[in-house]
C-alpha cells in the first residue's frame, strides 16, 4: 500500500536488534495506557523502533482493548439503520400522497355535500317506507333518467313530489347492495374512516326497510348477475344492473352519498387533513355550527352533542374548545355539578372571545391538573382529590370520589388516563394509582 524503497526496509531491519536493556514492564504498561510523560514516551518509542521484541510485547498487551473496541459496533445496530430508514421514507411518502389525495377528495366532496345537506331527518323517515332501492351515483343518476321512473312505478306519487330527495334516498338504500357486491376495493380511494362507522349505521336502519319492501330483491342481489329469474319486478333488474355499474366505477361516491342521509346527527368532518387534538374530527363542523349554536342554551347543548370538544387545563382552570383550540372557554364544574340542569359557560362569546375571561364562579372550582376525554365522556381531576365526570361533553358534571373497601383516593390528582370510556387510571401526588374498568362506577387502588 505504502511502498518504500527496498533499501529502507533493509536498513530498518539491520538496525532492528536493540541490545540495550528493555524498558521496565511498568513503563511499557504506562506507555500502552498513554500515561507516560512526553520525554519518557519518546524514549520508549525510540527503543520500540529498534526492538522487535518490545513491539511484540506491546502488541500482546493490547488485545484486551481489542475486545473493548469490538463491542463498539454493537450499539450502532441498535439505532435505526439505513435500510429501515429507507422504508420509513417510502412509507412516509405514501402517507403524504394519500393524505393529499384524501384532502383533495374531501374538498370535492364538500361541494357536493353542501348541495345535498338539505334533506331533513323527516325525509329519511319517509324514505324508509320507500321501496325503491335503485342504485346509482351522481353520474348514473343523470344518465339513466328512465330508471327512476321504473323504480317510481312501484312507489306512490309521494316521491314524484320530491324527486331530488328521493334520488338521494335511493342512493342511500343502494349502499348496502353496493357494499355487499363490492366489498373489495372501494375504500382504496380513500373515503373517510368515519364512513365505515356511518355505513354501518346506514345498514342497520336500512335492512328492515329492505325486508319489508323487497325481500325478492335481496335474493336477487346476492348473485348480481342472476336477474329476472323468479317473480321479481323490473325494478329489481334495474337495481342489480346499476349495482354492477357502480361496482365498477363510482362505488366510493355512492358510499359517501349514502352517508349523507344517515340519521346519525354526527356530520362527517368538513375539512379533512386538520388534525384534531382530542380525537374530535367532527369538531371542524362544529366550528361552523358552534358560534350560532351558542346563542341559546338549548342550541348549545345540541351543538355539544354534535361536537366532541377539545379539553385542556390552563393554570388550574378546566377549559373547553369547540373549534379545535382556537378559542377556549372556562368550564365551571361546580355550577353544573350543583344545579345539574344548567350549564354555564365562562365566556358568552366564542367567536370574538379570543381573550380569556375568568368567571367569578370559577374561583370556587378546584384547581385542575388533568383532563381526559373520550368523545362526550370527560374526566377532570385536580387538587384535593377533586375528580369530576361528565358524560355529556361537559354539560353536566358529577363529582366522583374513587374509593375501595379500604381506602379513598387522597392527594392531588396528577394524571388521568382514559384510553377508552370504560377503563381509566389516575395517579396522585401521594403516589396512589387508582383504576377503573367500568367507567368510574367502581375503583381499585393499585398497591
Amino acid at each position: 500500500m505504502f511502498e518504500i524503497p527496498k533499501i529502507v526496509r533493509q536498513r530498518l531491519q539491520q538496525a532492528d536488534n536493540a541490545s540495550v536493556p528493555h524498558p521496565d514492564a511498568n513503563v511499557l504498561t504506562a506507555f500502552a495506557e498513554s500515561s507516560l510523560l512526553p520525554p519518557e514516551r519518546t524514549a520508549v518509542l525510540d527503543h520500540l523502533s529498534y526492538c522487535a521484541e518490545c513491539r511484540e510485547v506491546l502488541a500482546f498487551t493490547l488485545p484486551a482493548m481489542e475486545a473493548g473496541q469490538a463491542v463498539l459496533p454493537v450499539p450502532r445496530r441498535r439505532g435505526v439503520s439505513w435500510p429501515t430508514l429507507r422504508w420509513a421514507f417510502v412509507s412516509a411518502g405514501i402517507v403524504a400522497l394519500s393524505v393529499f389525495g384524501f384532502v383533495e377528495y374531501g374538498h370535492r366532496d364538500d361541494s357536493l355535500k353542501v348541495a345535498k345537506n338539505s334533506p331533513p331527518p323527516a325525509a329519511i323517515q319517509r324514505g324508509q317506507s320507500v321501496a325503491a332501492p335503485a342504485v346509482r351515483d351522481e353520474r348514473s343518476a343523470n344518465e339513466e333518467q328512465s330508471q327512476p321512473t321504473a323504480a317510481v312505478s312501484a312507489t306512490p306519487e309521494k316521491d314524484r313530489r320530491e324527486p331530488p330527495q328521493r334520488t338521494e334516498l335511493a342512493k342511500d338504500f343502494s349502499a348496502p347492495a353496493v357494499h355487499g357486491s363490492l366489498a373489495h376495493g372501494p375504500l382504496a380511494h380513500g373515503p373517510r374512516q368515519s364512513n365505515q362507522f356511518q355505513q354501518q349505521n346506514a345498514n342497520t336502519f336500512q335492512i328492515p326497510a329492505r325486508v319489508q319492501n323487497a325481500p325478492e330483491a335481496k335474493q336477487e342481489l346476492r348473485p348480481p348477475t342472476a336477474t329476472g329469474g323468479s317473480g321479481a319486478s323490473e325494478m329489481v333488474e334495474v337495481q342489480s344492473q346499476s349495482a354492477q355499474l357502480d361496482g365498477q366505477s363510482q362505488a366510493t361516491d355512492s358510499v359517501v352519498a349514502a352517508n349523507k342521509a344517515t340519521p346519525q346527527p354526527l356530520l362527517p368532518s368538513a375539512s379533512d387533513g386538520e388534525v384534531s387534538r382530542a380525537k374530535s374530527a367532527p369538531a371542524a363542523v362544529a366550528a361552523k355550527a358552534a358560534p350560532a349554536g351558542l346563542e341559546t342554551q338549548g342550541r348549545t347543548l345540541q351543538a355539544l352533542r354534535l361536537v366532541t370538544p377539545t379539553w385542556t387545563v390552563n393554570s388550574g382552570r378546566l377549559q373547553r374548545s369547540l373549534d379545535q383550540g382556537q378559542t377556549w372557554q372556562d368550564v365551571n364544574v361546580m355550577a353544573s355539578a350543583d344545579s345539574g340542569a344548567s350549564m354555564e359557560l365562562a365566556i358568552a362569546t366564542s367567536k370574538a372571545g379570543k381573550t380569556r375571561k375568568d368567571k367569578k364562579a370559577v374561583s370556587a372550582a378546584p384547581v385542575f391538573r388533568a383532563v381526559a376525554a373520550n368523545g362526550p365522556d370527560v374526566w377532570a381531576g385536580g387538587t384535593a382529590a377533586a375528580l369530576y365526570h361528565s358524560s355529556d361533553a361537559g354539560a353536566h358534571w358529577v363529582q366522583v370520589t374513587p374509593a375501595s373497601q379500604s381506602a379513598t383516593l387522597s392527594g392531588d390528582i396528577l394524571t388521568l388516563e382514559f384510553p377508552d370510556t370504560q377503563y381509566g387510571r389516575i395517579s396522585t401526588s401521594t403516589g396512589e394509582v387508582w383504576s377503573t374498568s367500568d367507567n368510574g362506577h367502581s375503583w381499585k387502588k393499585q398497591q
Partner: protein
Amino acid sequence: MSSHISSPALQAVVDELVPELRAKASCEQIGLSAQSFSEILLEVGSKYSASASAGELRTFFLSLRVDELALARACAAGNNSAWEIFLTRFREKLYLAALRIAREDSAARDLADTLYADLYGISTRDGQRVSKLASYTGRGSLEGWLRTVLAQEYVNRYRRTKRLVSLEEESEEGLQFAAPEAQPSVSADTRVEQATDEVLAHLSPEDRAVLAAYYLDGRTLAEIARMLGVHESTISRKLDKLAKSLRKQILAGLARRGMSRRQAEEAIEVDVRDLKVDIRRSLAQDSPPDSFSKKTVEARVREGEG
C-alpha cells in the same frame, strides 16, 4: 528498600503526600503501615527520576495508581487479605489475558501458572522469597502490568523454544513471530546504505517505530494505531507521507554524496524494479490460464485477419 539514597526534595514531597495517598490507597484494609508505604513511595520516586523537580515529583506521585501499588506491595509482603483481594480481582482476568496471548487453553494455563509462581515468589534468591509484584510501581494499571509481564514471559519463552520448533511447524503456526528473513544485500554501494541510515536516523522515534511495525512486523494500521494510542487514519497519513518523503530524502542524500541524479535514481530503482518483477512473476505463476487465453485470442485474431 530503605537503602535507596533519596534526595531531600523527594523525601519532602513524599512526606507531604503520604497522608493523602495513603487514604487513596486504603492501606489499612491490607495492613500496610504508613512507614512501609512511604518507603515504597520513596523507592518508586527514586526509580522515576533522581533529578526531577518537586513539582514534577508531585505530579508523578499523584498520577500513580497508589491503591493498586499498595495492594501489589502488600501481596509481595505476604499479606493474606491482600492476596485474597488480588485473586478475586485478577485471577480471571489474568487467565483471560494469557488465553489471548497464547490462544490455546493448555498453553494459556501454563503461562498463567508460571506467572503465578513468579508473583508468589517461589523462586527464592538467597533463601528469600522475592515476589514479582514487588517490582510493580503503579505507573500503569496493575491489570495492564500483569498483561505486559505475561507477554514478556511469553515472548521470552517463544524465543527460547523457537530454535527447537521444526520448520514445518513454524510455517504453520509461528508465521507472525518468524524473524523476517534476511534479504540479500542488493546494493553494493555503501553510499546508498549510508544515505538511508542517515535519513532514518533523522526520523522521529515515532515515525521509525511506525515504519518498523508496519514493514518489519507486518502489523495492520489498526494494530499500530492502538499500540501508539492514536487514530488509525493518523497512522495511514503518516505512512503515506513517509513513503513519499523517504525516497526524496534518500535521493537528496545520495546527491550530497556526489552521486548524480540519474545514478541515485538507478541505485534506488534497482530495488523497486526487482520488486515489480517479483510481483509480475508471482502473478503469472498464479494464473497460467490468463496467458493461455491471451494466446488463443491472439491466434483467433490472426485467423480472422487471415
